[in-house]
């Protein structure tokens, strides 16, 4: 085969909040950057008069606007320091929303960050399970037409998250993926590598909501945090101090008895006046993550906690897969990194399952013996970029190159080939 298969494939996982990019075969992505593009639109708005003399100026203004953009952390910094850059988020709720911005984002990812020649590498991209086939076609078009990639595979994120467990234990391609990201939370059952589309459940609260809730709690208590900084501070508090408790009432008692042990201090500097300030971090340490288990404390319109959503999802899946699904609940996404999240989720799901079993036993009496259901929530240290890692593992197997759509296929059949992407058979 050609030389491109001898080089590692490029794996790019574009999430709503962050994009993870790197080369297959490595443990970590090379770069994790916010999925955001800063475009300088000041060129486009000047002088729209259609005179001949202006044509040249307008043309070069258009060229300048094409070239003058930044992605990732640089984009955020640029939009802060100058008013001529506008931030645009190419992905919303897991779906590509702005293809121009997405194409620019990919261009910078490939040339500025990874610094590779797209003609030399196979590419593995990811998408959410709810993505329409048209969007896959569009992705294929951009990848093959603009970047001339030799081969492309578009993988489904939850399947990759399952594959991430490949090295840590036996490779199990059946399981429920609980993905709590920045912009979307979903519960996706996967059987033998195929997503059970009809049973996908979504949950309205995300990592951003946890941050908002913490921000709200702190503000209501009257802590002195500058308002322009409060979201960032809340995010940092969430990442450093938050944990999941087993019982809120007990936790409140613990805090009231020994405040010195549990209440932390946050030190910061006000961005405008440069004056230092401190604030106490108390109950929000465990109250933030609690919104997943008692959503009514944060929002009025959801009252189904995440464990019941997982349970409902499994109950709606085909009956012969349910036991296997309960046995392998996999976490993915940054917000599942909260301490003890997996233990709490496992305990709550187990409780629901056990109650149901007791009801069955009570109904049928002693003559029917119900086999206990094993509930297992798997957590591993790479949860934060589990999807990327799964992609890296998959793309380093020799079967990957055979499963890819190649440039020759694309030229022969057109972008429709990207609608379906075969599940690897060689994996398990």
């Amino acid at each position, binding site marked *: 085969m050609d030389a491109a298969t001898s*080089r590692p494939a490029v794996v790019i996982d574009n999430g709503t909040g962050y994009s993870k990019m790197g*080369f297959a075969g*490595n443990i970590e992505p090379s770069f994790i950057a916010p999925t955001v593009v800063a475009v300088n639109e000041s060129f486009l708005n000047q002088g729209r008069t259609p005179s001949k003399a202006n044509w040249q100026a307008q043309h070069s203004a258009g060229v300048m606007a094409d*070239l003058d953009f930044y992605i990732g952390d640089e984009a955020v910094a640029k939009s802060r320091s100058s008013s001529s850059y506008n931030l645009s988020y190419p992905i919303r709720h897991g779906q590509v929303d702005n*293809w121009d911005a997405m194409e620019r984002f990919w261009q910078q990812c490939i*040339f500025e960050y990874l610094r*590779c020649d797209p003609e030399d590498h196979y590419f593995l991209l990811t998408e959410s399970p709810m993505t329409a086939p048209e969007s896959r076609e569009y992705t294929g078009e951009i990848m093959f*037409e*603009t970047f001339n990639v030799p081969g492309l595979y578009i993988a489904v994120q939850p399947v990759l998250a399952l594959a991430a467990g490949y090295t840590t234990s036996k490779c199990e391609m059946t399981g429920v993926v609980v993905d709590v990201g920045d912009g979307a939370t979903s519960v996706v059952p996967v059987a033998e590598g195929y997503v059970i589309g009809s049973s996908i459940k979504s949950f309205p609260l995300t990592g951003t909501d946890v941050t908002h809730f913490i921000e709200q709690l702190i503000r209501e208590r009257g802590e002195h945090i500058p308002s322009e900084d409060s979201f960032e501070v809340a995010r940092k508090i969430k990442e450093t101090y938050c944990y999941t408790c087993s019982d809120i009432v007990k936790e409140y008692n613990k805090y009231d008895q020994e405040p010195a042990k549990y209440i932390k201090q946050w030190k910061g500097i006000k961005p405008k006046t440069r004056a230092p300030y401190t604030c106490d971090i108390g109950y929000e340490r465990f109250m933030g993550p609690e919104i997943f288990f008692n959503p009514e404390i944060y929002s009025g319109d959801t009252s189904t906690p995440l464990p019941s959503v997982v349970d409902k999802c499994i109950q709606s899946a085909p009956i012969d897969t349910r036991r296997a699904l309960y046995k392998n609940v996999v976490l993915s996404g940054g917000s599942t990194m909260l301490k003890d999240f997996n233990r709490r989720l496992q305990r709550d799901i187990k409780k629901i399952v056990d109650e149901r079993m007791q009801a069955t036993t009570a109904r049928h009496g002693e003559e029917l013996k119900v086999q206990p259901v094993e509930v297992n929530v798997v957590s591993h240290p790479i949860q934060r970029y589990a999807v990327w890692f799964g992609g890296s593992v998959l793309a380093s197997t020799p079967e990957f190159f055979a499963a890819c759509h190649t440039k020759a296929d694309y030229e022969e059949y057109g972008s429709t080939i990207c609608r379906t992407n075969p599940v690897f058979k060689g994996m398990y």
Partner: protein
Amino acid sequence: MILLQSSSKFLLQTLLNRVNNLEKAVELDYQWVEFGDVRYHIQVTMKNPQYLSLSVSLPIPPPETIFYGGLPVGALEAIKAAYIGIVQILDPPRDGFNLTLKLNLSKLPAQDEQRQVLLVKIASVREVVLGAPLAVVLRSLSSKTVSPNLNQLVAIVHRPKESFFVLPQAEKVTVIFPMRFKDSIDTILATSFLQELIEARRSAGLQNAPLCSWSLSPPPELKEVPAEALSANAGFVTFVIYPRHVEGKKLEKTVWSLSTFHAYASYHVKCSEGFMHSRMRRRVDSLIQALDRAKPDSEASMGTGQSKSFKGLSLKDSRTNSSS
């Protein structure tokens, strides 16, 4: 505008990360590939966290280039000069690589500024190694010493099995790039891009830039080169470098720009394809809008522009739709 930086972003990030957390021992093993088929491998072990081994593999050289011990001419000397004191060249290099460097991170200068400069220099190891032969030629031009290989064509590898040619002459150096592209559309775009480049050079603001020219057939300087090294499908670009282009600090920049000229051109080609696509998308959108406006009112009232699925239509609407 969209120039490629000489330091590898990932390598620099890793080095900085390592230097700032030197006391924390971590296991690190990472491989990646850059444009022009340059592969990197870095490794840090738990046992010796202050040592970092960095291996680089170069593109496969074509027969006309000269390599000494797996490295371009002058590369060893350039490495020794650039990273004095903190780098040890391991011989033989790691299996499958051309060069393995062992960096002692505890010996870096203590001052932040100096350290930063040195780290950037390490991250641009590609420039030091691959650009070494060109740097030798250009340095002798800037110091106006007579180069030992005057009027002798030097081939320098820049892509797998491809090289560009340097002809040192008295008072000037001629650099010739045979441009090759895989894709037919790329070839056409590149040809017109290169012609534009020559056009742009003639504008008043660029009087001091190196002379450049483009031709479809090999220029006369290359008449001794075997024909198989000259199979270019996007023509030949020639730059003439005078001493004023390589004075002092300009030298490094010139070496980098010349040795990555092909990557630069191909980056531009890819970008322009991308921007053409976004123009085409915008055009299609505006045409669809025009079509929508042209529809009779009864249909337009159903919101044809907005409704993306059949769910938006009621049963009655869909019936009238199918009958019309």
